[in-house]
């Protein structure tokens, strides 16, 4: 009885709140995110953070949970998904909470912040990002007697010469043993080449492709890239979204001079670079000879909160922590992407003795956001756009006519 009475008099424990976070991390990345979540739980006693990760089929799972009326409290928003979620009012505006969260917009790379801004509103707190860059195997180039351009800017002609020289058939079997490049089949890979030729794939409003995707500048870019493949400077294209699964291994083992990718590929090479087995350089994408500079594409992700989250304010607080410098420092150890905060990114770049991180950061300027961050149904545009160069490589079709046909079909998609 005394025990019962004592129990009745003791203060009630604080109510436990469980916050569910949807993300697409896997393996080491998920372990690091768990460390971030553990840190938050330590800072907010009584709060439990459950990470619900779906490395595959993330968007399907997220949309289904929202449709079922059981959305996560916080979810990771990828730049191509911004229109799907933000235009449908599925993300809370963080603008009123920035001060309470200690979020300083001026500390974030402006291009990254813009991805999640609409007017004054901010619909996700930026997590990290990456521009598309050219990974360069300097060992391959030096064996071919080529020096990287001293200037950060280089033209398609320079790149073509370098790729040409790097492509070597050492055993004389008629098939190169070292390639200059690999064919960038997907739109997210080749759109910087169109931009770097002074063109674009859509109108400035994002409502039309005809006159842009089939314009001379864009066709020049297609011709340049398909020319590399037709002249044997790239291995045979795979014609699937995931591309050639061997490309990273080929690059790392000295079988390829240039690799077009984002920061997410860097952890694959990190051990080799640290062990001195891979002489890696990060360089800007080349530009058309008629242009002064290249423009790369940038992909970002941020933490968003659905307006009908079960624990709205706690979810906002958690999102604030997930985007905080402390969380970004923990997360940066995975090396998968560049922290969205310039100061945290600079800290890690300073610690990196290889200079690769600094090179990445130097390439952020001049990069622009993917069209997917602004245009709804962009996945359909991407699916159609791959046809332009596929039709050339597989059916020998004229690039201008296939581009015009695809642009017309993209127009139909955008009109819907």
């Amino acid at each position: 009885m005394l025990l019962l009475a004592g129990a009745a008099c003791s203060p009630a424990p604080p109510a436990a709140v469980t916050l569910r976070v949807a993300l697409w991390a896997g393996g080491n990345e998920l372990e690091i995110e768990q460390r971030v979540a553990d840190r938050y739980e330590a800072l907010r006693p009584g709060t439990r953070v459950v990470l619900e990760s779906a490395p595959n089929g993330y968007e399907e799972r997220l949309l289904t949970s929202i449709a079922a009326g059981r959305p996560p409290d916080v979810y990771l928003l990828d730049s191509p998904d911004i229109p799907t979620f933000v235009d449908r009012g599925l993300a809370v505006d963080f603008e009123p909470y920035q001060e309470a969260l200690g979020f300083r917009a001026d500390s974030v790379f402006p291009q990254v912040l813009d991805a999640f801004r609409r007017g004054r509103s901010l619909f996700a707190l930026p997590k990290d990002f990456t521009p598309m860059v050219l990974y360069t195997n300097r060992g391959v180039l030096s064996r071919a007697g080529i020096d990287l351009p001293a200037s950060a800017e280089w033209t398609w002609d320079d790149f073509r010469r370098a790729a040409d020289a790097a492509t070597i058939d050492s055993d004389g079997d008629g098939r190169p043993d070292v390639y200059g490049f690999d064919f960038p089949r997907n739109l997210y890979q080749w759109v910087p080449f169109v931009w770097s030729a002074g063109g674009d794939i859509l109108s400035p409003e994002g409502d039309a492709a005809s006159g842009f995707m089939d314009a001379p500048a864009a066709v020049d870019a297609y011709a340049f890239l398909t020319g590399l493949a037709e002249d044997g400077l790239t291995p045979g294209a795979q014609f699937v979204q995931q591309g050639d699964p061997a490309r990273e291994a080929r690059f790392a083992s000295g079988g390829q001079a240039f690799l077009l990718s984002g920061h997410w590929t860097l952890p694959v090479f990190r051990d080799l670079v640290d062990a001195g087995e891979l002489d890696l350089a990060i360089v800007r994408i080349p530009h058309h000879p008629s242009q002064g500079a290249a423009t790369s594409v940038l992909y970002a992700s941020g933490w968003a909160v659905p307006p009908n989250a079960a624990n709205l304010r706690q979810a906002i607080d958690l999102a604030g922590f997930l985007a905080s410098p402390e969380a970004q420092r923990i997360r940066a150890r995975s090396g998968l992407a560049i922290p969205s905060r310039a100061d945290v990114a600079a800290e890690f770049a300073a610690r990196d003795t290889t200079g690769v991180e600094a090179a990445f950061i130097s390439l952020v300027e001049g990069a622009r956001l993917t069209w997917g961050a602004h245009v709804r149904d962009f996945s359909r545009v991407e699916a159609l756009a791959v046809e332009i160069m596929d039709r050339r490589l597989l059916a020998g079709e004229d690039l201008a006519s296939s581009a015009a046909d695809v642009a017309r079909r993209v127009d139909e998609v955008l009109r819907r």
Partner: protein
Amino acid sequence: MTGRATLPALVAVAFTAGTAATIAVAARQLGEAQAAASRSVARMAAELWELSGGADEAARSFVDAGIAIESVPAPGSGQPANRMGPGESPSEPGAHAYRAGSLQPAVWIAVPPQPRESPLPPTATALALLGSLLMSAWALARRRAPAPPGYPTIVALTATALLGAVAATTHRWADSELEALSDRHAGHALRAVEAALDLGTDPERAARVAGLPWAASAALTRPDQLWTMPQDVGVALAAIPDPPYATPFTVAVGRTTWHAGLVTLPAQGPAAPFRALHLALLGYEETRAPTVPLAAAATAASLLTALILFLLPLSAHPPLLRRTVTAWAFLAPAALLLAIFTFGPLLFSLWISLHEWHLVDPVHPFVGLDRYRQIILDVDWWTALRNTGIFTLHVPLAMAVALGLALLTRGSRRAVRLARLALFLPSITSVVAIAVVWKWLLNDGYGPVNQLLESVGLAPVSWLTSPEVALVTLMAISVWMVVGYQMVVFQAGLAAIPRDWYDAARVDGAGAVQRFRHITLPGLRHTLFFVLVTSVIGSFQVFGLVYVMTEGGPLGATDVAVYHIYREAWEFLRFGNAAAMSWILFAVVFVATWLHFRLLEGRAVHA
């Protein structure tokens, strides 16, 4: 069993319970909508409280009746701060309000429940009472009457008609209540935005107080720039020549009604670039209409009544009645499972195919057969169907190979058993695992198959990267995958052919070919038919190989129907298209199967 007395009473009870459930379902749905509306109003009050720096009057300013504002204990005071959350208690809808910029709740704002015009649907209630009286009177009259000789059709029709009338009038009542609720809500939203603007808030922030889709008037001239408000709603609002200000009105967009309102913005100050704010509320009658639960309740009650009436003629034969009820009881679980997990999703997909449907969009406008017409004109869909048809051609080849293997691997010798095992293994291996391995084997650059070809002086083949070859490659892999299973089925069929027939044929001088043609094939006719039909249906549904190996490419050469449907749904989020394509594919498979039965089974039976 006193079925003659009990069954009519059960009919009356089922009918009365059905009408009560129908009305209760609607009333409950309406109650939930009212609670949601009240919570929304409470959130508006909370937003205004915060915007005003904690002024209670700002929170009260736009609510018709009084609201309760109660302080929340500060964190660390021994009580949890979030002791109540929005919507936790439908009887006291409310929301937390916070000091500006704070994430710790300061007060709890409770609003009175939204009023209802009438607690119950008057017409539906009267009809329900009348019907219950009628059914009870009929049940009383039947107590001493002999069992009817046939099905009491008139009673069943009367009960169904009454239940339908109750459901229809209840729906009309709920619709009108929900419309009124939406109108009141739109009014609250307009007043809340006005109050926010009076506090000097900028238009964007003021619009968010309402929590509704909104657009500034300047944006309405550029539909592509609209913010959160659906584009077609913005266009419809912009087209209204002289819209009323500060008063809710409705606007029809397609078959959907939106409750809208305009708030004038001050000419000077933070609102300067804009002239007016437009708010739009998708009416509760659109989002919370009790159509489906009402239809389900009325249908279930009608079915139950009809079933009990079906038993009535059997009450003259108690053993037969008992057996029938027992049989139904055994069938009921399976029937329920079929209804919920097979027919339910089928009907739902049909409904989706006739509507504009996105997973998270609140409104699903009816588009009817327009989508089917678009799909029929879609070249890519026809390409996918054509590829599926071509892919299906591997079925006869696989059957021929399987039959040959079945003949070759008869017997129980160790080597034969091992051969059977090896041939059967692909059938029990994951399609994904098979696809990954074959993808590596057939890679243009480093695949062992091409290396082997080159080592013997042959030219490499673009197995998966040539539009002419890729589909044939998938067909060949599919043959390899299915022959083991088909072989086992054929061997079972062969085992059923009497040995004597072969002996008699040998005595008559028949050779191997003649025995195969005149004994084996006719003896296997049912097995052949079974394998053919199931394999054709399976090949129409091919997905895994394409998904892993070619993604429908190159240039759509391997884009088969199910993969096409998958992409429409989960890559392009066009669920309506995917559902309509699924129904078209169903029709194709149905016709193909029917033709098989028509052309082959009849011949096999008469062979």
